[in-house]
């Protein structure tokens, strides 16, 4: 089931059971398109090596890329793995670490009731494919076509997108994954498969664990199936984003170091002013801005605001409320007591 060699796709589990077996066997799993910060932490990785751990990389970049760009995607995966090698400080010998790479192919539409506006899919379905299927019935997930940065996550798979739950430009009008996901099947790090939420459009039975998984960056469980509520295309408003292509520096938009910030309405004009020359996009409806800010720089912060960054290692996500962090750790301990999934992603 599990491949031995780095570049072999020996494992391509097609069922939840098969995937859960792989998950159970691995001792550390790096997972997701937005790769864990942990890659940049040699000491931690060496520690795993000493512990004779099995390292599992679940990655689908190659498959996801359109045929033209598949080669490029493969290179990018290789680059990530090179990062790992560098981190280990030894390019020839992996020590006891056994990096395994596999993809899972749970990407089918499992059931769709257009009349109820509810669909269940394998988590690895691309959002594009999902939108296509929904469009046949005049329905959609309310992502807009406008704005590159504010719709980045609509270019991924359902799983990656909901695991990151990045802001998007119809959020103020149509909500985000938290509002669209009705239920999930999740594989816990020990291989147990659990159901969270339901298939009903309204449900308050038990604790809403599916909402914890949304935005958890694959640190709590591996999402296998997702049930979503859909929106009639006719009810999807147009976004009102402003873009600033002149401030882009990188050839590939995703290569920009991103600073995503949401503030109070009253602070937003000042936040925009402070980001002048760096702005990539602005969504006035949700008071969110996307700017190009590298790791050596910061923009001003405002009351009650929050910031998400990329390419800043430890500083990609920072929690200013210690209780929040402490409560998050408690939850991580419940779901993933051995810290198997994307360790370090949130700084623990």
């Amino acid at each position, binding site marked *: 089931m599990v491949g031995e060699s780095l570049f072999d796709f020996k494992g391509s589990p097609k069922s939840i059971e098969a995937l859960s077996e792989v998950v159970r066997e691995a001792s550390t799993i790096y997972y997701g398109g937005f790769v864990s910060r942990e890659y940049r932490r040699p000491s931690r990785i060496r520690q795993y090596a000493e512990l004779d751990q099995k390292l599992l990389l679940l990655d689908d970049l190659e498959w996801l890329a359109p045929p033209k760009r598949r080669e490029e995607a493969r290179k990018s995966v290789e680059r990530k793995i090179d990062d790992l090698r560098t981190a280990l400080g030894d390019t020839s010998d992996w020590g006891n670490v056994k990096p395994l790479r596999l993809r899972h192919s749970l990407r089918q539409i499992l059931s769709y009731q257009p009349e109820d506006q509810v669909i269940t899919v394998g988590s690895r379905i691309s959002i594009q494919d999902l939108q296509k299927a929904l469009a046949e019935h005049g329905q959609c997930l309310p992502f807009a076509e406008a704005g590159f940065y504010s719709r980045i996550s609509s270019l991924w798979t359902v799983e990656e997108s909901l695991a990151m739950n990045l802001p998007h430009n119809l959020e103020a009008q149509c909500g985000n994954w938290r509002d669209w996901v009705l239920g999930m099947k999740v594989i816990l790090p020990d291989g147990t498969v659990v159901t969270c939420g339901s298939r009903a459009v309204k449900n308050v039975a038990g604790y809403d664990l599916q909402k914890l998984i949304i935005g958890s960056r694959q640190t709590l469980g591996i999402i296998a199936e997702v049930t979503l509520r859909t929106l009639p295309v006719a009810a999807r408003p147009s976004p009102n984003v402003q873009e600033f292509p002149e401030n882009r520096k990188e050839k590939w938009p995703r290569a920009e170091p991103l600073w995503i910030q949401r503030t109070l309405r009253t602070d937003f004009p000042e936040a925009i002013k402070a980001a002048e020359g760096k702005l990539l996009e602005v969504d006035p409806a949700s008071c969110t801005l996307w700017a190009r800010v590298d790791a050596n720089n910061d923009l001003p912060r405002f009351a009650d605001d929050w910031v998400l960054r990329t390419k800043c290692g430890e500083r990609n996500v920072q929690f200013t409320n210690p209780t929040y962090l402490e*409560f998050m750790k408690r939850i991580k301990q419940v779901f993933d007591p051995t810290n198997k999934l994307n360790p370090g992603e949130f700084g623990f």
Partner: protein
Amino acid sequence: MVQELHDLLGADSVLSGVAIERVYDCDAYTVDRSKPACVVLPSTTEDVAKVVKWCNQNDVPFTARGAGTGLSGGSMPAMGGVVIATKRMTEILEIDVENRCLLAQSGAVNARLSDSVKQYGLHFAPDPSSQSVSTLGGNIAENAGGPHTLKYGVTVQHILGLTLVAPDGEIVKLGGRVAGGPGYDLLALFVGSEGTLGLVTEAWIKLTPLPTVIRTILISFPTVRAATQTVADIIATGTIPAALEMMDKGILNALSAAFGLTYPEGTEALLLIECDGDDATTVDEEIETVRKICESNGSSSIATAATDAERAKLWKARKSGVGAMGRLAPSVVTHDGVIPRSKLPEMLDHVYAVAAKHQIGVANLFHAGDGNLHPCFYFDDRDPKQVESVVAAGEAIIRRCVDLGGSVTGEHGIGIEKSDLIGLMFDEPSLDLQRRVRDAFNSKALCNPCKILPSQKGCTEHKRRWRGTAW
């Protein structure tokens, strides 16, 4: 116990005695009852923290209570102990019009929140039918919905920040005035946790602009099936009304008896439908679409509200429905289940069949647009046989909801009522995960014990005593 709590909060903040035991032994779900040892009335977050710490030191269970309108026994003190009632925590602390949010204490009544910002053209969107009495804390704990949930979403979508007293007595703040943010969505975990993960003392709520154009119609149908089919058809077209509520003959009879409201001859069901927005043309188009669907299903008469006063009149039937049922029998149990909307016609047939089989009266008024059923059984809870029938009939209905791909509860919560039925939706590993999450915050199980999860330690023993203790 009472003396020590007096010392903590002052004598006028602690209530006990036979009358108090009777008032606080249940909520609006009267089938199960359990007496508190005493009731405290804190005024501030710090007061609540003091009480919770004292309970921890003395291993005394405690249960939060808002207005007690809950319909699943959530605020019933299952193991006795202290009821912490938020009656005196009713302040609206800050209104931030520009940022469209408001900070209130958890005992503030839902309707007051909206009333306080109406002048700014804003409102708090969750509007449970109990909104004239139910509290913000109770709405948060139950993740309450309401008629306008269909378009505006349930409580969790309107909560920005919380101040909590955690089950160990620690004061904790989560979120603030800005929605979203990185990390695990703790707000979404606490909202809807039925008071088992701590007590909410204050909350920042989101304020939503009031729509400028509202069209409301009340439509009469010659059969229940025609009405339910209409609901399914409206949803299938993709139109999203602001509200889509249904009432059947049982409710109409109660309303006639209680308030003298009359309906056209031959009415078996009514749909109350509201469309809203800021653009009159769009809203009119929506209502027109809806009207056509109604007509194609044989709707027999239509009343349209042109003014606010007329609108209020049309809503009166919906809002007074449960109250009116008080005329029919000493007790009413309002059930709560959800089904996919396309299954409404067959589900309602099932509800009537079950009621007939168990020989109990049933009336239905519910949030049809969400597929959220509320069969109301009316009976006499002094007769243990009737109580048994009501429980059995409820279970038969809930089981069918799950079989049809729905949920055992859409808004009233699991509480005590459905802690044995939640297993219909989740297998043991899934329930175990929920249990472990609960324990991560409520490790001593003192905070609202015996709720939500089945067969909890110490609760099974108590259970026998809850049921059938009506007076």
